[in-house]
């Protein structure tokens, strides 16, 4: 990480900078992507992104400037430009920046096994080719790919108050998907969704998700879906597998609890929230089985870190306890604006975007039931696996989600596979139908690198750990007849 300056003296601000507070957030990220599609290695790509964002509070205003020029001259120019924006808009500022916290964090962070060796490029391609060859097992398999993205990032935050934080990350996203087609029917099956497997660490991630051998396994399930009947329609219980639970948590708990949405910042784009400030402390978000935590301490999870991008120390925090809403997902600035407690979740997706309130690791805490016990408790329902479609209103209430694969459950036993399963509901009441929560043996740690939000737009990494869960009385339906 040669471009993140490690000498504080190199980027002290110019003596003429008249600011109440300044910070510099250096980000360098390097990545390599490997993909084999239909047994053909795809073009190798690598990326090196680096730059710095200067943030300045001056005259009651707030401004930022981002540049890839991390030389002392470039950094100073960015600070001056940020100060100009702060002063130019001070009289219009939504918050007097003189009232905002001025962080001085000190510390560091590193992903687990961050320096452990990874395969060579040739070895990555060989690994992916093996899975690709196994996946193309039948003429009805019309497209398939196996891929892995490797990302390494260094973030350094320096503040005028003496803050200095260095955080080093390594992310892996192994992914495998298969499309089968026959008789006018097309079905796609994947290994926990498109980049649903995304964690910090090294090769142990592939072992954790049985990536080796997944090509044949996923392809066989795609063929099975071709022959499966359409998902039945009606009101029934659903058993959501972790790779659907993560989407359910993300869309109908994570986004509505973002404090910047509640404050209205996102109303022109991502939307508002059905959650209002008066709900915290009393509102019943879900049944007594619902426990949601913001947990940046789970080492392998995608969005673990020690400090957020505003320098707030990160700690595990309950957002919903026994079904009662306790606090929002809001960083230090949003907390000051709203007068509410929050968490360390002010995050930016790179050096060229400002921090906003984001999910990080948002987890559903496990309960007591084994997977078999969850199934046994369902009289009439369907097991839903792997998200394939997601849609929700701008207040994060009326949702409709689709899955890759379903299995009918009758009288407490898993029956036949069904295709095109969908379900719909309303967040404000759906979580109150949470009837049973799987124990730790049913938990998977998944997430997405592609959570979109913000003006300007940002795509950020989010982790979700969840057990399998049963919901009662859900509106389920299939595809077009």
């Amino acid at each position, binding site marked *: 990480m040669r471009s993140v300056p490690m000498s504080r003296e190199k980027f002290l601000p110019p003596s003429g900078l008249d600011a109440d507070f300044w910070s510099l957030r250096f980000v360098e990220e390097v990545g390599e992507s490997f993909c084999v599609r239909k047994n053909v290695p795809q073009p190798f790509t690598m990326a090196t992104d680096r730059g710095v964002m200067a943030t300045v509070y001056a005259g009651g205003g707030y401004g*930022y400037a981002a540049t890839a020029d991390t030389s002392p001259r470039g950094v100073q120019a960015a600070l001056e430009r940020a100060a100009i924006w702060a002063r130019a808009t001070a009289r219009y500022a939504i918050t007097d920046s003189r009232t905002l916290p001025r962080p001085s964090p000190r510390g560091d962070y590193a992903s687990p096994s961050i320096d452990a060796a990874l395969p060579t490029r040739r070895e990555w391609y060989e690994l992916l080719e093996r899975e690709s060859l196994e996946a193309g097992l039948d003429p009805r398999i019309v*497209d398939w790919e196996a891929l892995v993205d490797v990302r390494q990032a260094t973030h350094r935050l320096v503040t005028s108050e003496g803050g200095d934080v260095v955080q080093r990350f390594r992310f892996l996203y192994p992914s495998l998907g298969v499309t089968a087609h026959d008789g006018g029917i097309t079905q796609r099956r994947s290994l926990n969704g498109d980049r649903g497997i995304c964690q910090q660490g090294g090769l142990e991630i592939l072992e954790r998700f049985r990536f080796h051998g997944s090509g044949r396994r996923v392809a066989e399930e795609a063929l099975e879906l071709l022959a499966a009947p359409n998902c039945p329609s009606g009101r029934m219980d659903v058993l959501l597998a972790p790779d659907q639970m993560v989407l359910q948590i993300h869309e109908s708990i994570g986004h509505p609890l973002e404090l910047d949405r509640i404050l209205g910042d996102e109303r022109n784009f991502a939307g508002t929230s059905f959650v209002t400030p008066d709900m915290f402390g009393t509102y019943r978000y879900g049944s007594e089985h619902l426990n949601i935590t913001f947990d940046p301490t789970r080492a392998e999870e995608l969005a673990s870190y020690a400090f957020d991008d505003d320098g707030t120390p990160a700690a595990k925090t309950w957002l919903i306890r026994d079904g009662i809403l306790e606090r929002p997902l809001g960083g230090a600035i949003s907390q000051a604006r709203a007068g509410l407690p929050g968490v360390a979740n002010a995050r930016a997706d790179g050096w060229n975007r400002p921090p906003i309130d984001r999910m990080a690791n948002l987890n559903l805490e496990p309960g007591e039931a084994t997977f078999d016990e969850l199934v046994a408790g369902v009289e009439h329902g369907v097991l839903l696996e792997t998200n394939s479609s997601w*849609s929700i209103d701008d*207040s994060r209430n009326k949702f409709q989600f689709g899955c890759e694969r379903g299995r009918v459950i009758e009288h407490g036993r898993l029956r036949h596979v069904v295709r095109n399963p969908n379900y719909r509901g309303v967040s404000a009441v759906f979580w109150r139908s949470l009837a049973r929560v799987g124990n730790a043996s049913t938990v998977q740690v998944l997430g997405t690198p592609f959570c979109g939000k913000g003006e300007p737009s940002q795509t950020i990494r989010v982790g979700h750990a969840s057990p399998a869960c049963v919901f009662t009385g859900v509106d389920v339906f299939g*595809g077009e007849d």
Partner: protein
Amino acid sequence: MSVEAYFEGLAGAVDRALAPGERHAISFSAEETDFVRMNRGKVRQPGHVAQRYAEIRLIHGSRHASHLLALTGDTNADASAASAAVAGLRDVLPQLADDPHLLLPDGVDSSSETRGDPLPAADAIVEQVLEAANGHDFVGLLATGPVFRGFANSEGQRNFHSIATFNLQWSLYHRADKAVKHSYSGLAWSAEALADRIARSVEDLALVSRPPRSLAPGKYRAYLAPAALQEIAELLAWGGFSARALETQQSALAKMRIGATLDPRVQICEDIAAGIAPAFQADGFARPANVPLVADGALVGALVSPRTAREFGLDANGANAAESPEAVAMSGGTLAMRDALAALGTGLAIGNLWYLNYSDRPACRMTGMTRFATFWVENGRVVAPVDVLRFDDTLYRLLGDNLEALTSERELALESSTYGSRKLESVLLPGALVSEMHFTL
């Protein structure tokens, strides 16, 4: 130094870094953007972003690899970084296999285009905006400044596209989720045009402020304004017109290859000439001014990237790697927009849709929400704003059996999302009147 001259210098440095037998191709993207985020008629986050990226591809025989590099803007430093990237890629190539799907331009087709007048300073625009919106709950984003795209290769081809645009997207809120959304974007800023548009927002806000009506799920007549149809077009852009997705049965329009059709009045094309996207793509292929996709309701074309052309034996037609349209245009019909509510009679006037996705992709069945200014209309007159509704319907019904009319006027909308960078995509769409739209929640 101009950005074009800087890019020429960078390309020269990569030329000089080549060893015998090697070729290169560079795709360049840069911008100087002022972003100003606003909420409740105030400024939330103002800032400036300067960024330059070059994706340098090194090619030897049919082996190739690329490195996307953030650049500082300093000519010497970036030339050194680009040369180092070439050296790094040279070390990678022996580890790679030959690429059977590599397709490069077979000629040299250089171009240079500059569009857009100098824009007012962003802080001056913000002042105009907030004064015009005075007293209203205004929330939105201003993005303004120049955007650059370039291509260069070792055969001497040079393409450069420079355009200065502004894009102001805003909503005026009444309360909760009741709001109107408008935009003002283009190449030449006019304070009068801004004032007119915000005044129109204020007028619409009065309609949204009426007591809302909740409708039960069911089937309703509907008029989809161009901004609502834009959401459907953008969902279709997600692989719908991709030749690769069509060849592998993954396109939502795959049924149209075996006879499914839309209404014969539906004409859709990739109309680069009508948009702001460059006339070249990242691999250096020129883009035709117009690629027909749907004619008389039938699928007649697809977007073919160079790799797909090689893989399936097709002719490349300037598509990007994702084979997504960048300037999709749909022809207008005969219904005057001012007559749309009268033609609707009683039903839903939908200003915006939101968060579309497929509920059954092979059937092109999609779901999504109404958003912003959506009204219940009776006898051609707005009665009440409507609480958000979820629809779930197929394209073949919406723009097929149930299509009653398309408006004669079309609206051009510049892409407003700014993931990673400002986009140069656009859509040009009419409004659509449908006899029935299925709402489920």
